[in-house]
Structures are given as structure tokens and as C-alpha cells.
């Protein structure tokens, strides 16, 4: 049972001033699953992601990944352990081209350690990753400045940035937000393919319907607390969840 748990969150708390953003949240993530995290605005989802990935220090509680304590580590160290995240608002490196955007994670110590000199030219590896992710492999697209891409491409670039680090856990913070229905339809197979290749994925999402198409389990948050954790069908039926989203009936 324990070998299957890749991420353990135990009783984390975080307050900002007087606001309790994350209230005693605990859950486990199993290897190779897609765990969805949903909840109304302000329920603490992004703060939870920040806590797990080290961008925000927890007031109390701990996060473990396969024996290593993550709470207290800096974000770059956590990424070095193979736990990466996307940002809700894609933040590419505006002054660099798409290819060069990927050179950055390829320069990280995680990649240097595991691949070392066998990496070859980073530009070429970057082009490969971009092609995997859906960028056209031609003389123009990968070399466009990141600031020139549309939202759909930028989201893919975010994902590419994560994949370049060869992670085993990806936390996606609202990957589908800002995308059109067709763009989401194009992204879903990508996420599924990643999972089928062994990746563990946590998806914080607002687009519940699309999320439920691929998530194995779903966790619900409201006002910083975890109010539900089950398979999607059960969550849909749950009274507590309906109340959280729609208010008191």
C-alpha cells in the first residue's frame, strides 16, 4: 500500500493575515493516478499547490514524497526531486524563443545529474520536447518569441517546461483555464498520454466537466478545508459538494 503513495499531505495549514487559506488538509496521492482538485473560488486550491511545491511556507503540517520531507525545502529543490508544477497564468520567458524557453529547465541540476553529458545539444532536445507537446517542428514556430504565442500554445509551453525536467509528479494549476473547448479537447489526450506513460498527475481545475472525463479520483475543497475525496461519480452526487458550489438549498 505504502509503495503506491507518491505524495502525502498531512495536516497542512496556512493563514495570510487573518484569512485561513488552507485549513488542516490531508490526503494521499497514488502512483500513476490523475487526482483532480476542485472547489469554488478562494477555496485554497492554488495555495495548496504553492505549499506542496515550496513557494509558500506552511504554518504547520508536513508534506512527504517517498520518504523525503518537502515542507521546508525551497521550490528549486522540490523541482529537483521530480515534483513540478505549472502556473495558473502561464509565465514564459518573454524575451526568449520557445526553444530557448526549454533550454532553461534542461540546464537544471536534475537533468545534469541524470543525463549528464549524454544530453547532446540542448536546442535539439528542446525541439523534440516541443514536438511531443504539439508544436509544429518547422523553421519558424519553435523560434518565435514566447510573447508571440496564443494562450493554447503557452499552456503547452508550460507543460513542456515541466516535462523537460523528467518529473514523476506534475501538478497542473488550472491548465484548462483560458482555453477554448476545442483547445481543451486537444489537451486532454496529451494529459492522458502522460498518465499512461507512468506520470502521476494532480490537476487543480475549474472546468469540472472536462476534469471528470479523465480524473481517477477527485478532492473537493471549500474555504480552505477538504470537504470530499472520492471517485468523480460519487462526488457529483455528494450533497456537501453541491452545497459548496451552489450554496444552501
Amino acid at each position, binding site marked *: 500500500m505504502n509503495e503506491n503513495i507518491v505524495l502525502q499531505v498531512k495536516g497542512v495549514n496556512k493563514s495570510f493575515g487573518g484569512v485561513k487559506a488552507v485549513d488542516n488538509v490531508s490526503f494521499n496521492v497514488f502512483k500513476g493516478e490523475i487526482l483532480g482538485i476542485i472547489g469554488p473560488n478562494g477555496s485554497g486550491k492554488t495555495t495548496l499547490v504553492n505549499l506542496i511545491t515550496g513557494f509558500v511556507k506552511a504554518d504547520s503540517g508536513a508534506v512527504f514524497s517517498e520518504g523525503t520531507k518537502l515542507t521546508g525545502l525551497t521550490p528549486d529543490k522540490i523541482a529537483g526531486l521530480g515534483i*513540478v508544477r505549472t502556473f495558473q497564468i502561464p509565465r514564459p520567458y518573454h524575451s526568449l524563443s520557445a526553444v530557448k524557453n526549454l533550454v532553461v529547465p534542461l540546464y537544471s541540476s536534475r537533468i545534469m545529474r541524470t543525463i549528464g553529458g549524454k544530453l547532446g545539444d540542448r536546442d535539439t532536445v528542446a525541439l523534440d520536447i516541443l514536438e511531443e507537446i504539439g508544436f509544429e517542428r518547422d523553421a519558424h514556430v519553435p523560434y518565435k518569441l514566447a510573447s508571440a504565442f496564443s494562450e493554447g500554445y503557452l499552456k503547452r509551453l508550460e507543460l513542456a517546461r515541466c516535462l523537460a525536467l523528467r518529473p514523476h509528479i506534475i501538478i497542473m494549476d488550472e491548465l484548462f483555464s483560458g482555453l477554448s473547448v476545442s483547445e481543451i479537447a486537444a489537451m486532454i489526450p496529451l494529459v492522458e498520454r502522460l498518465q499512461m506513460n507512468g506520470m502521476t498527475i494532480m490537476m487543480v481545475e475549474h472546468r469540472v466537466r472536462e476534469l471528470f472525463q479523465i480524473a481517477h479520483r477527485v478532492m473537493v475543497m471549500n474555504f480552505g478545508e477538504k470537504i470530499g475525496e472520492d471517485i468523480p461519480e460519487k462526488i457529483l452526487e455528494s450533497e456537501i459538494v453541491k452545497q459548496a458550489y451552489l450554496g444552501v438549498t
Partner: protein
Amino acid sequence: MDQKIGRNERLDRGIKVRTEGIYAISSWKGMAYALLPTFSFVLGMLILPLIVPSMTWQRIMTISCIFALLALSFDFLAHFVGIVCLGGAFFTGVGGYISGVLNSAFGLPMVITIPIATIAGGAICTLFLIPCLPIRGIYFAIVSLMYPILFHRVIQALNIFGGTDGLPGLATFPNIWVELYFIIPMTLLFTFGLRRLVNEDFGIVLRAIKDNDQAVRASNINIAWYKTKAVFIASAIGCFAGACLAHLYGWVGLSLFALDFSIFPIAATVVGGAGTLVGPIIGAFILAPLSEMLRAFGPLRVVFYSLILAGLVVYKTEGLVPFLQRKYHQFEHWTEV
């Protein structure tokens, strides 16, 4: 409704498009077009000392190089790493004093003092600036502005290293030609070295840190370490400039920490074009002679380039080099809409 509405359209020149990337070697004309800017810049720098009218002017060339190096270091940090360092005077002071003290107290010759001053000075300056790297940019700028003043006062108060009088009688360059043809090639070396660096993977990471440091952290990179390395490079260049200055005049004094050395590089960068690395060099070569010509007016020249700086910063001019690049690579014509 007879009004003709038009706009100024800018298109790449045909020759630029034809010489994109590898196609540059497809014709002699193409190669010439691609190489001309760099070639004329390098040639210009190397030939300039031979064509100026007098030795005073040659001395001005060397001073321009010193300021050019400071401007280069400022541009590199500010526009490729995102660190605004207002402490040019810190570098010249530390570099100059290390070189001067080594020469004066230990009799070490110039060939040894200058390299040591560059590396050791770079290390010392970096050490002092490291604690300030995590705090927000504006405070780093303030602290870097304060460091030279601090060192100035400490040296004055402790009356070490010659105190207020400074250390005279240092070794100078054997003659003006050695001076020129040491400093100018070194300047070119640093300029093109940095230009290369910012396009290498290491430089790409630095530029990424400037654009979005949180994303870089999320990519398993310790940004503090990279910033430190960048600051070391910039301060080493600045200390080199300071060390050369010491041996140029054969004298080090508290004036090496003057605010001049902090403000001038910024002015030169703004005039020449920020973010181009070559722009600051050209800017320095424009402003330094102008400022020397105004030397007779004393403090007025500081007024002069402070006002230029204020004006250019505020009116957000693009700088000389980007302007020239635009003219070279593109043509404009009026089209009707």
C-alpha cells in the same frame, strides 16, 4: 472625406531576409551585409587612436574605454539579469585600491596587480552584494548606491590606504600606445565575450531569471547562485576598469568612489541603447569625450550628463544602436490605409 490616412510601414530590407541564418554565406554581398556592423565597430575602435589629432585625445580614448567597461557591466546586469546596480563607483574604487595598494605597498608590477585586482576585487564586491540579492530590486539599487559612499567614509575615517590624500606614485603604462592597445582590445574582448555569453545556455538562464525568476526556480535552478555568478562577472569587469584607471594616472584616491562612476555608465547605456551590450560602449565613446571637453566647466559637466540621463530615461528613447540597427535592417515607407 478626402483625407488620406496613411501609416509608416517598416519592412525588413530584402538583403536582410536573404541573409537570414545560414543563407548569409550564399553571396559576397550577403556576407558583407551581415558582417559590416561588427567589422566597422571593431575596426573603428582599433583605428580611432591612430586618427585622433593629439595625445590628449588619445588619453580621452582610454578614459572612454574605462567608462565603456563600466557601462557594459551595468547594461549586462540590468538588461540581461534584471539587477539594477547603481554601484559602478564601488567597483572602480575596490579595483583601483586593490591594484594601487598592491603596487604601492608590495611593489608588484602592473601585469600582476591588474589581474589580481580584477578577480579579487570582483570577489570582494560580490561578497558585499550577495546579501542584498534576495531583496526587491529597488532596495538593491539603493544599497549598491550606498556602498561606494560607505567605503569612501571608512577609508577616510580609518585613514588607511593613504586616507584623504590617496596613494601617489604608482606604476603607469610605459607609453600611450601600450595603454591604448591593451585597454581597447580588452574592452572588445569583454564586450564580445559577454555577447557570446548571453546566447550560451548559461546566459539564457540569466535572461530567464530576468523575465520570470519564479518559473526558473520551478525548473530546479538555484537563482541565487546564478545571480551571484552574474554579479561576479559584472564586478570583475568594473574592478578591471578601476585597476586600469589607477595605473593610468599612477594614483589612487577617494575620488575613485565618486558618484560619477555610478551615474555615467547609466547615462552611456541609455544614450547608446540598453540591452545591446555594444550600445553602452558607443554611448561611453560619445559621452566621455563630450564630458572631457566640458572639463573646463567643472561640475557643469556632471549637470550636463545628469540632465541628459534624466531626459533620456524619462522620454524612454531607444538609444543609438537600436536606432541604427533599425535603419540598417529595415526601410520605412508610407502606405495608405
